[in-house]
C-alpha cells in the first residue's frame, strides 16, 4: 500500500516537473506574454507532460540531481577535449605529409544504460582522432575508428574517458 502510494506521488511529481520544463521552454522560445500565446503554451505543455513524463523523469530525484551535477563538470572537460580535437585534426590536415595511420579498435566498458552509452559514443566522436563505429549494448563493447595510433592508445590504455563517463553515471 505504502509503496503504491509513493509510486503514484512519484508520477505526479514527474508530470509536474515535465510540465514546468516544457512551459519554461515554451516561454523562452516564444517571448510573447499575451493570454493567447501563454494559454496555448499551458495547454500544449500539459498534454506533453501527461503523455511523455516518463521519458524525462526516470529515476529518484537525488540521484538525478547528483548525476546532472557531475555531468556539467564532465561537459566542461569535454569542451576542452573538443578544442584539442579540432587543433589535432587541423594539424593533421594542414601538415604537408599528413601524419595519419588509421586503424579500427575494439574495447569493452562497464556501461549499460542508454544515456551513458550515448554520452560515451558522442564523446568519442568529438574528441581527438576517434569516431565510434558500432556499439554492442549488451556487452558494453565499442568499435572505434582511430585516425592514428596515439588517439587509439588513449582509449585502449589510459581509459580516462571511460572512467569519467562511468563515474558520471555511477556504472563503474
Amino acid at each position, binding site marked *: 500500500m505504502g509503496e503504491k502510494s509513493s509510486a503514484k506521488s512519484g508520477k505526479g511529481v514527474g508530470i509536474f516537473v515535465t510540465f514546468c520544463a516544457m512551459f519554461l521552454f515554451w516561454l523562452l*522560445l516564444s517571448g510573447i506574454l499575451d493570454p493567447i500565446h501563454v494559454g496555448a503554451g499551458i495547454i500544449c505543455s500539459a498534454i506533453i507532460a501527461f503523455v511523455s513524463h516518463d521519458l524525462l523523469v526516470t529515476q529518484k530525484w537525488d540521484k538525478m540531481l547528483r548525476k546532472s551535477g557531475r555531468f556539467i563538470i564532465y561537459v566542461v572537460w569535454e569542451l576542452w577535449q573538443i578544442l584539442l580535437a*579540432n587543433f589535432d585534426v*587541423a594539424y593533421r590536415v*594542414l601538415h604537408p605529409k599528413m601524419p595519419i595511420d588509421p586503424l579500427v579498435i575494439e574495447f569493452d566498458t562497464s556501461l549499460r544504460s542508454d544515456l551513458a552509452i550515448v554520452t560515451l559514443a558522442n564523446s568519442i*566522436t568529438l574528441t581527438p582522432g576517434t569516431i565510434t563505429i*558500432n556499439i554492442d549494448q549488451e556487452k558494453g563493447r565499442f568499435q572505434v575508428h582511430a585516425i592514428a595510433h596515439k588517439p587509439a592508445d588513449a582509449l585502449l590504455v589510459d581509459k580516462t574517458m571511460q572512467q569519467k563517463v562511468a563515474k558520471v553515471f555511477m556504472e563503474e
Partner: protein
Amino acid sequence: MVELIETILLAVVVLSLAAGVFFMLAGAIGLLRLPDFYTRLHATGKCDTLGEVLIIFGLLLYHIYYYSPGAELSVQLVPVKLLFLICFIFFANPTATHAIMKAAYNTGVKPWKKGDRRM
C-alpha cells in the same frame, strides 16, 4: 570604461568568428586531402561541430550587446535560441557522423591503411 568593454567584446566576437571560419576551412581542406571515407569523416565530423558553434557563439555575443538593450522580450530572447542551437549541434553532429560511419562500415567500405593507394 564602456569603450573598453565594447572593444573587448568586439575582439571576442571577431576572434570566435575567425576561429569558426578557420576550423570550417580546415574541415573542408581535410575533406579534399584525406585519403578515404572514414578519415574524411574525421575532418568534417569534428571541425564542423566546433566551427559552427564558434560562429553561433560570436553572433550570440554580438546580439546581446547591440540588439538586446531596450528591445522587446522576443528580441531579447534570441540569444537563448542560439544557445539551444549550440546544444542541439553538440548532440546531433556526432550522432549523424556516427550514423554515416556505421552505415559505411556495415556495407563493407574498406578502411584505408597506411601505404595504400589513395581512393
